[in-house]
């Protein structure tokens, strides 16, 4: 067993859980968006840890590609969420 692989994977789990907790509990919208992003980071770390095959072997490229896709999807969702939040603020301000 590769120690580094396990270490990163476990950290990924921890970060994911931290993000999930805040996403569920925090009141601020902005913070929830940050939290979901952190959660995503945790999942990405797990995926990259899975891809890692030690310093000698080339890593598995498939999870890398998946994470790249995941990052773009995450930023799209973040952008939409923030735009909605902005619109919501404007609606509040109108009242």
């Amino acid at each position, binding site marked *: 067993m590769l120690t580094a692989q396990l270490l990163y994977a476990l950290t990924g789990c*921890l*970060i994911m859980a931290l993000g999930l907790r805040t996403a569920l509990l925090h009141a601020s919208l902005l913070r929830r968006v940050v939290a979901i992003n952190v959660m995503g980071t945790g999942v990405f770390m797990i995926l990259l*840890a899975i891809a890692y095959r030690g310093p000698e072997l080339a890593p598995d490229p498939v999870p890398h590609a998946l994470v790249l896709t995941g990052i*773009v999807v995450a930023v799209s969702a973040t952008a939409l969420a923030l735009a909605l939040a902005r619109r919501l603020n404007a609606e509040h301000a109108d009242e």
Partner: protein
Amino acid sequence: MNPVSLQLFDVLLLLSIVGLAWASLASPDDRRSVILFMALGLLLALAWGRLLAPDVALAEAAIGAGLSGALLLAALREQPRREAPGATEAVAKRGSSRLQAMTQWVVTLLCAGLAGILGWVLMHIFAGTPLDRLTQAVSANLGVSGVSNPVTAVLLNFRGYDTLLELAVLLTAVLGILALGPGRAGYQPAGPIFDALARSLAPLLILVSAYLLWVGAHAPGGAFQAGATLAAAGVVLRLAGRQRIGLPPEGALRLVMTAGVGLFLAVGLSLLLMGRPFLGYPPAWAGALILVIESAAMLSIAATLVLAFIGGRLPAHGIPAAEPATTRREAITTAAAPERGGEEESGC
């Protein structure tokens, strides 16, 4: 580095990552939280490099830390002093504080349990015989993929369909943003120093993005990293007070936005009509086709991300970037009037 110091590096890095993540999540202040999150992105890029994933590291630095951070900071600027009443706060504040505390505990325990189980299962998997997974299959077919960077091969050839849909996701997001109404009014024109900096930084970023695109075929890089970098150029210009930051007028802008998905789809369907499978590039043309698709994708990604940063529709009439600073401010205020009208219209 020897294994021991490497492990020490790992532990330190991971500890700081967890610490930063926690600090960002638990910070009492939204602004601090966002800044810490951006810092976290930089450390993550380091970690991805350590895990031999330089493509992801580049993307993380450009998108994860850079653009997401920029988006969050821009949102923060408009955040009302106090969180507006209604929505989330009302939900959180409902019920007694005792109930709230209990909810917190239950959620925390659930999350801890989730992390524990996930970690345990992963440990279980890593303890077994190492799996080859798809590494072998990818390297066996790399020769006919048209590129030599295996990640690009997976992204644009083997799993090109994922990427096509991912570009559609990006398009959907930006269409959703545009449908919400006009974008931010824009920033005050920057002082001479930052303006000069922006003027020199933007071409540099454009150059870097072109390089990243080109190099993606055989080394870390590719459309996403390149697109994000290009978008960064736009963001910089925007911060310097440029209104349209080089974005083309409405019709052409739509063309740029759709270019990535459109060209990808067109290539796929043309191949289908030629009797090949959808997205089944002939090996001889694969490299060229991928480069064409990636170039279009880069433009789309950049335009999309910049529009996301602006947060809505552009003012109806573009303002030439070279206009004198004095008239520019007037132009902003006049442009704001029709925007209000637009907002009402979209409200029905």
